């Protein structure tokens, strides 16, 4: 394999109920910038039908072209038809890199076709840098629980495959190109060969407390929390401020709060106006998920890394600070 034979960068356009997933557009915006550096064409790959208005959004992110795949097997997401389509397309067009949104489904099929193509797959990069000397993309991501940043490359194999978490890159459309190329491919995957069938779907109960991605105020508790019984005061503080509660991975691991409240790169990305963090050490992969206007941190350890990310910090017992805040806010309002 000569990696110089592989050109152009692809983004998989993921749909959900006829709408394009925001992460696909975020990827198009970020990779537009990268392609301007590498000189590659940015191609959007669409499997099955997609409403024209939705494709306009993709165009507006500055893609150079589309690869539209028609055929059987794409009516609902399934590992096999989707992995097959990317294998066939990649063998034919030899892209330098393929990016897939790190949704549950994106993470399901991207590693699978990577193996079929015998190439490497990275996950959850937070930054993409082009190394002109090697021609490789550097996928930069926090590792070992965020204690280090790791640079990952594919020095030999192509295509370079990466899944990227929703919310990692910003949706900042560069505007549509004057000329947009359209390639049409027919790839039929026999429907009877799809080995998984969706029998039903139960939408998640719409518990608004579990949807924190758009919350304006978040009270985030970390591993400093003594036990489940101590959680009540943080709920009260969140309620007082009209906000919601969130947590870090160890609290999910300890079974105290559900996964949907886990903030960070492997959980939810949040962008509140006010973020109050209690007993959080400040690992990079957690704080990477926080884009707050005002960030407050409370931790008993003065050397906790979280203080590097806050606007205001208090070194002290998290429960005491929380209790005093509740009392003071009530007093101020009475």
């Amino acid at each position, binding site marked *: 394999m000569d990696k110089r034979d592989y050109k152009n960068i692809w983004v998989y356009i993921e749909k959900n109920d006829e709408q394009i997933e925001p992460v696909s557009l975020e990827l198009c915006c970020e990779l537009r910038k990268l392609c301007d550096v590498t000189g590659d064409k940015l191609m959007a790959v669409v499997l099955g039908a997609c409403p024209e208005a939705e494709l306009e959004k993709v165009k507006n992110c500055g893609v150079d072209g589309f690869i539209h795949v028609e055929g059987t097997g794409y009516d609902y997401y399934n590992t096999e038809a989707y992995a097959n389509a990317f294998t066939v397309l990649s063998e034919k067009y030899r892209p330098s890199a393929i990016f897939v949104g790190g949704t549950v489904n994106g993470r399901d099929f991207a590693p699978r076709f990577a193996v079929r193509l015998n190439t490497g797959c990275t996950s959850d990069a937070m930054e993409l840098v082009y190394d002109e000397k090697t021609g490789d993309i550097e996928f930069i991501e926090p590792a070992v629980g965020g204690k280090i940043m790791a640079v*990952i490359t594919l020095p030999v194999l192509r295509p370079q495959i990466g899944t990227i978490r929703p919310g990692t890159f910003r949706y900042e459309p560069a505007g549509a190109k004057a000329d947009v190329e359209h390639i049409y491919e027919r790839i039929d995957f026999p429907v009877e060969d799809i080995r998984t069938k969706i029998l039903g779907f139960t939408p998640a109960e719409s518990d608004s407390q579990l949807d924190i991605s758009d919350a304006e105020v978040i009270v985030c508790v970390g591993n400093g929390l003594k036990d489940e019984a101590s959680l009540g005061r943080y709920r009260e503080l969140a309620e007082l401020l009209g906000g919601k509660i969130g947590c870090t991975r160890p609290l999910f691991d300890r079974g105290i709060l559900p996964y949907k409240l886990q903030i960070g790169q492997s959980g939810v990305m949040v962008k509140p106006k006010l973020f109050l963090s209690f007993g959080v050490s400040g690992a990079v992969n957690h704080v990477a998920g926080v884009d707050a206007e005002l960030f407050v941190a409370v931790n008993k350890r003065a050397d906790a890394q979280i203080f590097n990310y806050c*606007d205001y910090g208090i070194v002290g017992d998290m429960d005491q600070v929380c209790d005093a805040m509740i009392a003071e806010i009530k007093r101020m309002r009475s």
Partner: protein
Amino acid sequence: MLKILVCVKQVPDIDLVKMDPETGNLVRDGVPSMMNPLDMNALEAALRLKEDMGGEITAITMGPPAAEAVLRECLALGADRAVLVTGREFGGADTLSTSYVIAKAALQLGSYDLIFCGKETLDGATGQMGSQLAERFGSSQVTSMSLIKSLDMEKGSIVVEREVEKGVETIEARIPCLFTVEKTNYQPRLPNYRGKKAARTAEIITLGPGDIEGLDAKLIGVPGSGTIVPRIYPPVLPEAGQIIDEGSAAASAVKLCAILAAEGRI
């Protein structure tokens, strides 16, 4: 008989791994290792299925000789046999090459109707191994599987639930099938004394590179890996924020509230 494979990994307790501020290297000395927490949920799902349907559970891992400890845990909890794939040649492998080796080793010892993996590991956290193993085994796959509802061996199908962003899918998958397991419904059990005692002396099948037939040396370890890590560096920390210190936690909290109120935040 139902044949089940459970893939597990020994990981360091990353919350205890520290970084040497001088060298930027990770200090793993004295950091305890354990079974990857989400692999416990995968094993639990397999154990419950075996309790309902009968069958044989094989646990497999790749790692240094010390990784045998997690296999003994699997045996203590009810796995029937355990396979350790170990050898220097396997070191430095990414998921591309690890999935190749594990599948080769497992298939040499038999075939499997169902394969269970944790959703991701604590250390690598790529979450890729499940899908990549499914490709190596040529099986169907259901990632983020949260509940097994029914298994029909005659029909060769299994009905499960799968957690996606907006809800729960009910999926019928053809066997053989690989699952990555959510922790939702599979809280791991604790081993009993008898299990632990038996596991201590149980035989562990150990396979080195020379023991796996037809293993292509170019596809294992570092040479077989698609990705490399050319460098690591400590995270660049922003400037520390303003620390409020009014002498006591309570007094500092009051001051903080005053600042937040003045900034119109509360």
